[in-house]
């Protein structure tokens, strides 16, 4: 028993204890994050579902109804809970913004990875990073002072609407999509490009036929991330979209998004009332949408690996 070597081997060393402690710490962090995510889900879901369980709203009517005024009741005494105008508005600005942003993002990313010198690339990199860092209230303010009058003078209407919202969002999602596209272009193996050039393809042919194609899944992921960012943006959009809970008649008429209605209404309602529960239902839709965006990213990623 008193063999010192045997003792040493059999007892736990300092390094092993560190190992165990380290593993314990990481598990602890993971558990904490899991608890936070889960409790957010449970909280939002329980509040959001209350509209349908406690206030007896019809889920289908909630999704397809066009009349939103949760604090008032209609002729039959039911609160008016039609979220379609906001859902349409949210999808409208998101999709338009991404359509605007994608060509610019891909162009910028190609320039940064294929064309620019090391210096030019560094400068562009910091420009893109700067765009990420600008607070959304600043974007909103610029939108209100520049984009809204511009849209009003060139396209007509009051200037507030989906078009203005998506122009502001375009600038906001541009850095996200760009930097992720850059990453996916850099991830293309070097020998793809070398082989293509060796076969006598020009730079443009290489970019178009080889680089972009093998980076497709990465670029799609970047676009979905851009969409998720646009979908969740509240403040900047709220300042330029007009916030009218009406079905948008076009790109120039005032509309509203899920987030803009949420930020405006949540302080004016009292926990547990229909008006408040209805807002939580909107929040639940937002949460589910971001979940869906995440799942889509996963699916694209898996497909990309198979290729």
């Amino acid at each position, binding site marked *: 028993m008193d063999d010192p070597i045997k003792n040493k081997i059999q007892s736990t060393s300092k390094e092993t204890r560190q190992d165990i402690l380290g593993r314990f710490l990481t598990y602890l962090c993971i558990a904490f994050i899991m608890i936070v995510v889960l409790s957010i889900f449970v909280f939002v879901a329980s509040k959001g579902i209350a509209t349908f369980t406690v206030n007896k709203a019809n889920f289908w009517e909630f999704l397809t109804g066009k009349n939103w005024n949760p604090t008032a009741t209609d002729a039959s005494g039911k609160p008016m809970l039609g979220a379609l105008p906001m859902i349409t508005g949210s999808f409208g600005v998101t999709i338009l913004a991404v359509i605007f942003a994608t060509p610019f993002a891909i162009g910028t990313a190609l320039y940064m990875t294929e064309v620019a010198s090391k210096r030019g690339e560094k400068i562009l990199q910091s420009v893109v990073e700067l765009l990420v860092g600008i607070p959304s209230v600043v974007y909103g303010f610029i939108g209100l002072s520049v984009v809204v009058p511009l849209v009003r003078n060139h396209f007509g209407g009051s200037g507030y609407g989906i078009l203005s919202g998506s122009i502001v969002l375009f600038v906001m999602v541009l850095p996200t999509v760009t930097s992720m596209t850059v990453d996916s272009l850099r991830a293309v193996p070097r020998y793809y490009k070398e082989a293509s050039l060796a076969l006598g393809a020009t730079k443009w042919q290489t970019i178009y036929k080889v680089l972009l194609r093998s980076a497709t899944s990465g670029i799609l992921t970047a676009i979905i991330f851009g969409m998720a960012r646009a979908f969740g943006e509240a403040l900047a959009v709220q300042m330029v979209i007009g916030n009218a809970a009406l079905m948008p008649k076009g790109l120039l008429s005032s509309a509203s998004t899920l987030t803009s209605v949420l930020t405006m209404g949540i302080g004016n309602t009292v926990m547990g009332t229909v008006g*408040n529960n209805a807002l939580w239902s909107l929040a639940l839709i937002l949460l589910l949408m971001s979940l869906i965006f995440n799942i889509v990213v996963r699916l694209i990623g898996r497909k990309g690996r198979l290729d």
Partner: protein
Amino acid sequence: MKNLTKIATVIIASTALLVGCGNSNSNSSSSSSSASSKTVSGKITIVGSTALQPLVEKAAENFQADNSKVNITVQGGGSGTGLSQVQSGAVTIGNSDIFAEKQSGIKAEDLVDHQVAVVGMTPVVNKDAGVKNVTMSQLRDIFTGKVTNWNQVGGKDEKIVLINRPSGSGTRATFESAVMNGQTAAKSQEQDSNGTVQKMIAQTPGSISYLAFSYVKSDVQALSIDGVAPTDANVTTNKWKIWSYEHMYTKGKPDTAAKSFLDYMKSSKVQKGLVKDLGYISISNMKVQKDSDGKVTDK
């Protein structure tokens, strides 16, 4: 309502340990300024109305300078948040632009109302519209959507762009109870902050909205209604009908720290100084009072 509050205030004030001298019931404010010079300690959390927030923040700053043992936190969040948080006991004081009786989901009988200021609101239009005065029924027709062009009310041939406040906000509730006469406003754009609305009206041709007096700058046109100009003096006599109290609600009677802060808010130092400087109307200048149903009586 107001009398009740006052009587309650006086009773609490006279029983509170920290109040040195007795109150004459007509003027609780003069004694309260002496209360704030004694040592009080405690923690006060105030949440709610963003319209009242700047005043309370400033007052809290000054109050804490005199009473270093009191710790006051002031947050926005909106009137609904203020009322529900104070009702649940999460905060000491809930600020609200509207009477607790008017907020759904709030048991007003549990809360004690402390009215600390009055805010006047006025319809504002873009300068382009060419209108300076409307009748009350014209204003109502504009907001219900019956009138859609400024030339129908004597202005330029220009489309009216309605910018409303979100339903449930205190400003909108005040405006609607004074103007809309029970009719529903047309669905339109909504914006929730005075500052943004002011900017939007200034730059959107044909737009109309309403703002608290303190946000009316020279780049927007305030409207007179039936020839009555939106001035503080007209509010105090109720000639100008669109105004509301700023309430600070406590759940039951306030504790000593909250009590001395509320007294400080109502003291002549704040009422004649900060309240005026920040564009509110002092509660002591009011010649009339309004109850929670909007009924106005002489004081």
